[in-house]
């Protein structure tokens, strides 16, 4: 086997249970984002753009759509003879293996996979975050500080809540205190759960905790590194980064993209985001309709009004229908005269003619689950349950 300097392990097992019905059938990392993309496309493209060509994707919760999306990695140029992408299903101890039940456990199951490539460094990346980051720069930083582990981190804005470990660092960026408990943060510098480890040291730590039921990077591994007086450093990141833990955050992050100059741009040549899309056809916009401040993905067709919205591939908005401030995922059908406002509509849903989804007021958003069928004329102001069945064709 060819030796690799750095390989990556993508943690794609999490459900993202706070997203409610949006992640009923799909792991959070496989949730669609920005019309045609899926969340995992961002970290995966980051890895490829950073020159990493050996990636293990650790799956756990509802992996089918994730694994069929990744396939053999063709869209990311990861269909390779040496290295490439490997789907590594975790046998898993917990049912909902969100971050609480341990992030390092699945990695410990695949020590053999990593050892095949005999890497110097292993990068651990969560697959369910939206951002653009060059890990090669992080590696340079890691080497410059002679670190044993580097933790990517961000400042929590004032008033924001902490959702992962916090750190106190010295003037060089070396971590002095590492506080895994989110209830009592020690600073506003928060871990992004992206870690760059020296592989031999990580391997030693993983083996040390072999017997643990739940093995976590922030609760076990990194504190152990500090205990052994290893150099733990923090790599501070100031760029765009979205976690989208809830449906509301998901909706907000999507709608940010329709602005004139969004923080996350898809249109720059540099740092392309790759995805596996089947739909190729251009979007069609019919006579006498209005499409403003919108993203329309391939194969979508608009006969009505779309304002400040993100429309997924193959979705149809019929005559007289109005879609405003909403995210509609792929292959949905909005029938004549329906009004969709402040809503997230998951893939494959049908909105009956004249139906009203969501309200214009700031009363929170309306979420319609996958493959829902909303009957004609129905009014759904706030919806978090699945409506209708899969039976029956589209009207």
């Amino acid at each position: 086997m060819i030796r690799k300097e750095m390989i990556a392990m993508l943690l794609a097992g999490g459900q993202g249970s706070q997203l409610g019905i949006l992640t009923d059938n799909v792991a959070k990392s496989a949730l669609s984002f920005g019309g045609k993309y899926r969340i995992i496309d961002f970290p995966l493209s980051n890895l490829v753009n950073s020159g990493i060509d050996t990636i293990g994707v650790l799956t756990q919760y509802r992996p089918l759509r994730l694994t069929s999306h990744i396939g053999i990695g063709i869209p990311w140029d990861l269909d390779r003879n040496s290295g490439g992408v490997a789907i590594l299903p975790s046998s898993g101890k917990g049912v909902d293996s969100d971050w609480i039940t341990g992030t390092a456990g699945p990695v410990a199951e695949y020590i053999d996979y990593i050892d095949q490539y005999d890497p110097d460094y292993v990068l651990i990346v969560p697959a369910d975050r939206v951002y653009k980051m060059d890990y090669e720069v992080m590696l340079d930083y890691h080497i410059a500080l002679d670190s044993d582990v580097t933790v990517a981190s961000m400042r929590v804005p004032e008033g924001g809540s902490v959702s992962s470990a916090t750190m106190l660092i010295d003037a060089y960026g070396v971590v002095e205190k590492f506080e895994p408990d989110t209830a009592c943060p020690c600073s506003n510098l928060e871990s992004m759960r992206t870690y760059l480890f020296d592989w031999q040291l990580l391997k030693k730590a993983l083996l040390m905790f072999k017997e643990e039921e739940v093995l976590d990077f922030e609760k076990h591994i990194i504190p152990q590194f500090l205990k052994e007086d290893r150099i733990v450093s923090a790599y501070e990141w100031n760029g765009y980064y979205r976690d989208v833990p809830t449906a509301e955050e998901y909706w907000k992050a999507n709608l940010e993209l329709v602005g004139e100059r969004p923080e996350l741009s898809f249109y720059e040549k540099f740092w392309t985001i790759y995805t596996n899309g089947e739909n190729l056809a251009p979007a069609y916009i019919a006579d006498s309709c209005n499409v403003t401040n919108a993203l329309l993905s391939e194969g979508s067709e608009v006969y009505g009004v779309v304002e400040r919205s993100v429309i997924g591939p193959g979705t149809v908005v019929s005559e007289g229908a109005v879609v405003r401030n909403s995210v509609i995922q792929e292959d949905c059908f909005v029938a004549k005269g329906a009004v969709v406002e402040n809503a997230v509509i998951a893939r494959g849903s049908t909105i009956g003619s004249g139906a009203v989804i969501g309200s214009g007021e700031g009363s929170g958003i309306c979420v319609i689950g996958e493959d829902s069928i909303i009957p004609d004329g129905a009014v759904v102001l706030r919806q978090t349950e699945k409506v209708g069945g899969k039976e029956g064709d589209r009207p």
Partner: protein
Amino acid sequence: MRAIGMILAGGNGSRMRELQNRRTVAAMPIAGSYRAIDFALSNMSNSNIQKVGVITQYNARSLNNHLSSSKWWDLGRKRGGLYLLPPAVTGESWWYKGTADALYQNLSFLRNSREQYVVIASGDGVYKIDYNDVVDFHVLKGADITVVCTEYTGDDITRFGILNLDEDARIVGFEEKPLVTKSNIISTGIYILRRRLLIQLLEQCRAEDRTDFVRDVLIRYKDVKKIYGYKMNRYWSNMASVESYYRTNMDFLKPEVRDYFFRQYPAIYSKKDDNPPAKFSADSRVSNSLISSGCIISGTVEDSVIFKKVFVGKNCIIKNSIILNDVYIGDNAIIENCIVESRSMLQPGSCHKGENGVEIVIEKNKMRVT
């Protein structure tokens, strides 16, 4: 499948005017996000043809680029796959002198295959067909050669080969680009015949120094061999001229054409690139238009087909036009009845109106390092 595919993609399309300078007809962008050859290739792939040769000659760089990987059409295979067959300089030749000559020069490709039939198709047609149906017809009729044909109603019918069929669908008349037409049935440039017969006919042509498949095989042998016409009833178009190219693109604004090609099974495949969704700003006014991925639209677009990665600035007015890939259109520009060549950069306020028919606009992009 019992056939191999041969796609004739070497034509220079002299009636494509300036558009031919950039690429051969088979590589012409079509319907927003496809290239002409995608249709022939997808049809072959969807018909389970696993070995396809593409004969290229004229200005093939853009085509080669498009075909740089065969995986998009499911032709990246260990057995069979996609073969590019450009002319090779040998002791006796260095250029394809015609369609039959091109096939003859690749005789070893035909000889080394084991499939019973050969499907020959041109690379510039826009259609869907299951070649298995044509082979079934071919076998049923006991034909030597089957020509796929269609009824044509356009006024430029004289640019095609015109067929006369008898009641059994056998071809009794075949005229290439006649001045006066006796029927409205035209050849679509898709032929099916047994591989051994093709080899034999090509060797015969070579011996007699004949080079054109239509003139020297189909027309010459029509009374000797049993040549049948298989009628195709669905959408078919090809783009041998600027007018037909323009019309074919505009056909995709019709819901039935879009539905047939974009939504009905089987799909047409193309090389996938990594463009973001099309973006529409607060000032965009778009009606009856196709907008491809990677576009940013801020102006008015009516009855037009906009290809990939096109930027349309504020207050632009684009009507009845085709904007090819990677074009930048500055603010306040007006474009009517035009085809804007790919990678053009139109200055703000520029005005192009095709008065007598379609105007082709080519503006060099000075921002681009060439």
